[in-house]
Each structure stands twice: as structure tokens, then as C-alpha cells.
């Protein structure tokens, strides 16, 4: 794995971050011009104000010279044209809830905030699609669609705040993607502004038009290929019935067995979430659910569909949980009771936050059958570094989120936590998994890319970038490793520091 890094030539992989610094000298002129495009009240440039646009959910920061708030595709196009003519980096931004630093203006320049383009332009119940602007909040779309008995399936845990534009850029997942897939499965068409300011619609309100699937390539492109100004997404009918089950196990192996049994039975639940002993204790301390003190793992399973299917499936799942040694099983069908079952899982991060002032949240994926092995190795790493590691996982997807708890005021702990995080990522990759299941590469994991992809793989991705955005001014410095730090993996620089994000 390590030797691959050495082959990466800096020239091939790295962006020339800022082709020209000239524009920095002309900030004043630039701001005037930006104000000319979007209006005075839609440009932020005072250094004090810029402080709050320097971060997203990752702790790393990068301060832009200006933040603009366009309200139309035309304005976005003009801003990009201007930036392009001056060689100014542009970083698109939604709500800034991402956990990999995708919305951080790493190279300075213009931050393009799309929060004021937040209209749901159309909901078409007959074709089950919605036409939305990028700044629409994920949950708002589902709320609006619910009037027609529909909803937008991707439900990242930040869905109350995050935007559809950001979901598309990061190809967001969520606890319920086990059955319904991630964002890319639900995006049909995009209006995109390219770095030269040209505007085009790609895709249709239905799939099947001939030609390369450019929409498929744009979803998950982390803002580096173009700026989305409209999207047509597909909506799903709200299920007739939903049931949730919470099962308590004495250890994580038994819970994993239950998950395997469910999968093997041919059922596809909408969600299968797991919490380990440390998490359970933290949740119990914070919220007093009355979880058994010796609980080693808690499994939350949700099924949806027709009433008959759901009843049927739930019966089977309850039996399988008991067969696998569950100490207790609770289940609910009313939405209030279901929320109660979810409450512990949803509050887990907050509760874990109370254990210590800082934590580093890792996002890794492994083939589901390797989960038990990998969790064992993760706990060994915790022991090795003397750091408590709590695990909250999307067990059905093999997506794990080890959370390394530490106190940065203790000398060296932060560095240890970062190192432990790097080790965990390596374990995931070695188990046949990958770096990130839903948070994205961004700044956080760009130096890890050589763990999964070799020089040829990465240069092919670069070719895609060159197709859409040859100058590299769009969201520069993300996703691809800097030549310098990948020569030696042990020195991998995790850009993000402690306490990344607070939800998963």
C-alpha cells in the first residue's frame, strides 16, 4: 500500500493552487465588481464577518476574501466568469455542514454561498420529481413533498440543516440508505454552471437519454467540476407503514450475528444501526433510557413498506434477534414511539461529546461481513493509544464511525487521536473497504487517497476534472493528495483536527 504513494508525481496530482496572486492586490476592485453583479448587500468582505465563513463541519479553516450570495443562475454565471478572468479560486458552499472540509475556502478567493437560492420551484407528483434550487434544505423538500404523499429519500443526519446542493456535491448518504440508496440514485438532472460561466442542463426528468451519464459523474464531485444551480430529483412515495425495533445484546458479536441473520434471510430493512458499549453508557448517562448496565451493543432496525410486509418482516426480525441472543427487544409502529427508540441513537453524539471535550469522528466502510473483525482491531487501536473509542455504525452498510475521545489539553493526545484515526482508515482499506462512505474526501482525507487508488486511477479522475474544469479554480486543493505528504504514509497530514462534526 505504501509504495504506491511514491509513484505519484507532484505535477500530475497537485493543483496549482492559485495560478496568480495578482488579484489579491486588487481586492477592492474585485469586491466592487462582485457587488455590481449580486448587489451590495450580497457580498461579505469585512475581515470580521469573513471569520464565520472560514469553516464548515471540519475544524480546519480557510478564509476567503469575499463571500457572495447570488440569487440566480445568471448571477452565479457572472461571478464565475469574473473569477475565471482573474484566476480567482471559487469555493461553492451550501449550509457548511460537511465533515470533510468541502466548503472551506482552502485557497482563499471567493466563497460562493448558495443559501439564498432556496426555492422549491416545482413538485410534480405525477412524475414524482421535484425541481429545486441548490440552497433548499433537505428536510424542507421532504416536508413540502409530504403534501403529495412523497419524500426525498437521502436523509443525512444533518438533514435539518444541510442543502440539496451540498447533498449532490457530496453524494450524501444517511441511516436509511440501506434500502433506498444514496443521493446519486435520486438525482435525475442538474443545471450546472461551469468554471467559465457557461450554463447547461445535463440529464432529464427521466433517465435514458443517450450520451454519457454526466450527471452521474457530477454527483459526489465535491464542488470541483461545476456549481449546481438547479436540480431535478426523484421523490419516493411515503411508505404505508414503518416499524422500528430496538434490540439489546450483551456484546457486539451477537448483534453483528443478528445483522447477518437478517441479511441472510432476504429481508432488506431500511436501516440497521448499531451502538457499542461505550456509546450506550454515554447515552444512558445523558438520557436515562433504562438500557441494561451490562449491554454490549444495541441494534436499531427499521422496516417500511405495506402494512402486511412490515408486520411479516418485523415478526421474523424479532425472532432472529432473540435467536442471536438478544437480551431484550422493543418495537414500535406509532411515530412517537418510534422516535423514542431512535432518541438514544440520535442523541449519541451529543452524549459522547460529554465524555471529553474533543473527539475525532472517523468515517470508514468495510464489507459488512468484516465488521466484527474490524471493530475488534479498532478497539485494539484504542488500547494501544490509551484512547477510548466509541462506535456508532450503519451496520447494514458496513459504514462505521469510530469516535476517538480525547482531551486536547493533555499534551500529545490530539496527535495520538489523529494517528489512531489514520490507522483505523488503513484497517478499513485493508479489510476491502474504503476511506469514506458518506463524508467525502475533501481536505480531511485527500492524503489518504493513495491507500485506495494508484497513480493511474487518480490521474483518470484528474482527466474528468480537466474535462469540466481545466483551470482548477473550482474548489482547489481538495480530494487529490498533495505530492509532499504522500511520500510517507506515517507522516500523513490529517488536515482536520479535533472534534470533527457532531453528527453522523
Amino acid at each position: 500500500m505504501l509504495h504506491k504513494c511514491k509513484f505519484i508525481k507532484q505535477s500530475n496530482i497537485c493543483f496549482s493552487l492559485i495560478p496568480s496572486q495578482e488579484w489579491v492586490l486588487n481586492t477592492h476592485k474585485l469586491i466592487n465588481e462582485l457587488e455590481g453583479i449580486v448587489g451590495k448587500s450580497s457580498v461579505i468582505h469585512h475581515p470580521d464577518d469573513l471569520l464565520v465563513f472560514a469553516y464548515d463541519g471540519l475544524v480546519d479553516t480557510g478564509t476567503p476574501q469575499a463571500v457572495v450570495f447570488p440569487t440566480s443562475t445568471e448571477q452565479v454565471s457572472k461571478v464565475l466568469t469574473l473569477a475565471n478572468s482573474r484566476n480567482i479560486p471559487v469555493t461553492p458552499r451550501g449550509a457548511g455542514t460537511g465533515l470533510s472540509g468541502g466548503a472551506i475556502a482552502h485557497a482563499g478567493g471567493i466563497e460562493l454561498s448558495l443559501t439564498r437560492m432556496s426555492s422549491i420551484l416545482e413538485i410534480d407528483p405525477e412524475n414524482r420529481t421535484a425541481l429545486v434550487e441548490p440552497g433548499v434544505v433537505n428536510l424542507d423538500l421532504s416536508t413540502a413533498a409530504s403534501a403529495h404523499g412523497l419524500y426525498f429519500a437521502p436523509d443525512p443526519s444533518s438533514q435539518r440543516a444541510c442543502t440539496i446542493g451540498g447533498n449532490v456535491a457530496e453524494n450524501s448518504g444517511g441511516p436509511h440508505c440501506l434500502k433506498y440508496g444514496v443521493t446519486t440514485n435520486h438525482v435525475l438532472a442538474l443545471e450546472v454552471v461551469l468554471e467559465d460561466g457557461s450554463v447547461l442542463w445535463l440529464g432529464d426528468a427521466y433517465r435514458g437519454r443517450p450520451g454519457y451519464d454526466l450527471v452521474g459523474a457530477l454527483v459526489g464531485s465535491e464542488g470541483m467540476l461545476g456549481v449546481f444551480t438547479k436540480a431535478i430529483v426523484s421523490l419516493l412515495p411515503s411508505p404505508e407503514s414503518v416499524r422500528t425495533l430496538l434490540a439489546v445484546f450483551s456484546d457486539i458479536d451477537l448483534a453483528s450475528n443478528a445483522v447477518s441473520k437478517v441479511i441472510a434471510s432476504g429481508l432488506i430493512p431500511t436501516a440497521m444501526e448499531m451502538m457499542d458499549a461505550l456509546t450506550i453508557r454515554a447515552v444512558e448517562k445523558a438520557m436515562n433510557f433504562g438500557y441494561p448496565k451490562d449491554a454490549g451493543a444495541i441494534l436499531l432496525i427499521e422496516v417500511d413498506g405495506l402494512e402486511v410486509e412490515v408486520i411479516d418482516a418485523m415478526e421474523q426480525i424479532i425472532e432472529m434477534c432473540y435467536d442471536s441472543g438478544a437480551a431484550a427487544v422493543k418495537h414500535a409502529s406509532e411515530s412517537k414511539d418510534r422516535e423514542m427508540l431512535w432518541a438514544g441513537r440520535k442523541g449519541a453524539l451529543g452524549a459522547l461529546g460529554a465524555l471529553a471535550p474533543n473527539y475525532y469522528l472517523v468515517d470508514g466502510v468495510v464489507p459488512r461481513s468484516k465488521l466484527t473483525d474490524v471493530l475488534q482491531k479498532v478497539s485494539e487501536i484504542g488500547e494501544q493509544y490509551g484512547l477510548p473509542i466509541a462506535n456508532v455504525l450503519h451496520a447494514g452498510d458496513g459504514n462505521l464511525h469510530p469516535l476517538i475521545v480525547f482531551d486536547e489539553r493533555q499534551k500529545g493526545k490530539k496527535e495520538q487521536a489523529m494517528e489512531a484515526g489514520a490507522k483505523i482508515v488503513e484497517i478499513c482499506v485493508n479489510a476491502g473497504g474504503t476511506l469514506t462512505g458518506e463524508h467525502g474526501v475533501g481536505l480531511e482525507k485527500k492524503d489518504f487517497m493513495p491507500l485506495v487508488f494508484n497513480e493511474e486511477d487518480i490521474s483518470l479522475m484528474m482527466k474528468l476534472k480537466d474535462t469540466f474544469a481545466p483551470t482548477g479554480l473550482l474548489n482547489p486543493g481538495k480530494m487529490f493528495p498533495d505530492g509532499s505528504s504522500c511520500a510517507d504514509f506515517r507522516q500523513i497530514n490529517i488536515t482536520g483536527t479535533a472534534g470533527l462534526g457532531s453528527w453522523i
Partner: protein
Amino acid sequence: MQPLVFADNLIKKPTENEDLYKCVHCGLCLSSCPTYLVTGLETESPRGRIALMKAVHEDRAVLSKQIIPHMELCLQCRACEVACPSGVPFGRLMEATREQIYVQKKEPFLRRLILKIVFHHALPYPRRLYFIGRLLRIFQRLRISQIMRKIPGKIGQLHAQLPSLNGDFFRPSKESFRPKGQAKSRVGLLSGCVMPMTHGSTMEAVVRVLVRNKCEVVVPEAQVCCGALNLHGGDKEQAKEMARRNLKVFYEANIDAIIVASAGCGSTMKEYGDLLKNDSEYAEIAQVMSEKVKDISEFLVELPLDPPEGNLGISVTYQDPCHLAHAQRITDAPRKLLRSIPGVNLIELNSANTCCGAAGLYSTLQPKMSQELQRKKVESVLQVDCEVMATGNPGCAIQLENGLESAGSTIQVKHVIDLLDQSYNV
């Protein structure tokens, strides 16, 4: 009372410092923040404000003319606290920040002067408040008042915002109110500063409802305003003084619970313990007494309530006061009370827990944002087919009344207890 002069930033005090670092800027608070929803700007969001506080705390910025407006635009509605998975006590952080602005005299001169008069020379003195109230009532009966309301610009606006003081004022009294027969408990009622004048009849209804539920009610005469306005405005020292006064009065009244009918006051009084935790004399009593503070709806639901029987036959919608829903986390109790009334059809309001823009002095200090939030709130009320809009805080009530009236709506705004009282007396 002299405010202490702080040489250093207040938020460098250890507790607040920790609070500040609980924020991991995940952004989940954004969509709960009314000012973010209106502006779409990170600078007007809880996460942004915390980032600015942090920058000030770490000496990367000073409390500049650029930063202060972002702090002042905050409603202190604390909706972000509910959304926050990390449990950041944003209200406390913002109060500390406001205090900094206040003690460092960073407000514009005129605003500072007005605040100072209100905080130091009016709010701590109930008699002065009643006197001002009477003057205003006389003024409101004059024709000129009607004319002034219509003057375009700030003066007209200010007049339009003034609550109507037509009804009788409610006053504390020496005598307690006793139920027939044995009282189940003895409770103290906070009279408050504005509410007894603007909503005197509601206060009377509160007393009747409590008595009906077998409570002996005392309304101590020596009590003062709870200090919420001072605290939110940054005048923490005066707020502490008022808290001490109230604690003494209610402590001596020997009661089982302190009942508050105004959500804003209730949340402040519940936090007296926190406010005075370093007070050598009052720390302990503040802790004990603040645990006795109950919102009227919370108290009644726990009793349990003597079921009302009078059928009202109306459709009602309910607006969550921020300081009830977010600061006290009480959302079920008032709804339970409403549902217990025969003939009340409770229809949920869209985004019922989003601030209406009243927020104490906010509507006067930040009229533009306040009106925008009022407009949005009225818009969602008008989507509901109802006759009455119920709430649990006088500030919200006034803001909603004004908003509905200027929208030409006939929907009446009432306190939850007004409706309960009405049902008891049908």
C-alpha cells in the same frame, strides 16, 4: 447599584470558556435560527455568532462595530439550544456577550441611554412602572395617540407596537387567595413588570384557575420584575440584584412553588441558581428556589388538573413561546391543557416553535427583523382555520395581536389560561 467593571472579557471566565468550546460547528443549529432563515447569512446564525465570540475570546478579533450588530440581531430565542447535539448553552453565551457589550459601553449613545433608564430606573421599581402605565393609558385614550399611530416612520411604528392598556391592572396584594376548603398547596405568583398592565385580566384568570385547582395563591407585594430584560440586554449585575430581591420575597412567603404565567420570566427565574451561583449569600437559596419555579401550564398538568367542563366550541392554534419551548423545553403541557377543554379543536401551526420576533425589547431595538418575523408568523397563522391563537407569554401575545390586527384578521390572541378559565366559568 453600580455595575462591576470588568477588566477582562467576561467569557474568559472558566465556565463560559468551556461552553464556547463545546461547539464543534456542525451547523445543525442553522435551520432553527430565525435570523439565519431570514438572511441566509452565517454571520446571523448561532454557529457564526459562536465563531465570532471565539475569535474575540482568542484575541483574533475585537468586539467591533462590525461584530456587535450580529450579536444584537440575535433574538435569544434559544431555538438553537434545542437543535444542538453537543448541548451548547447558547443563551448563557449570548448573555455573557451582551454583558460585555453593555459593560464596555459599545452601544450607540441613544440606545445606551434608553437601556440604562429602563434597566436601572424603571424595571426594578414596580410603582414607577404602574405610574408609567397609567400615563400611557391616559395617552392612549387621547385622539392624538390614534393620529400618531399613523405617522409614517419610526414614531408611528413605535406607537403601533405599544400594547393596549385598556383593561384593569393586576396588582400584588397583602391577602392571599384561598380556595374553599382545604388548600392542596400554597403557591406564590410572579406578578411581573409588563404583564399585570397589558394582561391584567389574564393574571386574574391565573389566580382563579389556581384557586379552582385548590391552591392558595400569594402574590407578594415586595416582588419586582424578574430581571429577564436586564439579563438579555447585558445588564447582568442589575439582574442579579433583582433576582436577590425576588428570592428573598418568595423565600419568606413560605410557598411550595413559584408560579409564572409569562414564559420569559419563568425561564429567567429557573436560571436564578445559575445566575447567582457565585453569590456568597444567595447561591444556595437561589438553587433551592429556582427549582420551585414552574410555568403555570407545567404546574397544572402535574397537579393533575381539575377537568374543565364548559364547552367553548372553537378552533384554536398554539404558538410556542421561545422561552417556554426552548429555554424550559415545555411543549406538551400547554397543548394538554388546551386539549382538555371541551369543544377546543387544536390545530397545529406550521413552525409553531419559530420565534415571532417579539423577544422582549427586541421588537423596539430591531424593528426590521422583528417585523419580518412577525409577518412570517402571521402568514402561517392565517393558513390555519382558527378563531383563537393561544400562547403563553405576554410579549408574544402583543406581537401577534399587532401583527394579526394590521393584517386585518379577526383572530383573537389569548393566553392558554384565559381559555381554561373561560371553560371553568361557562
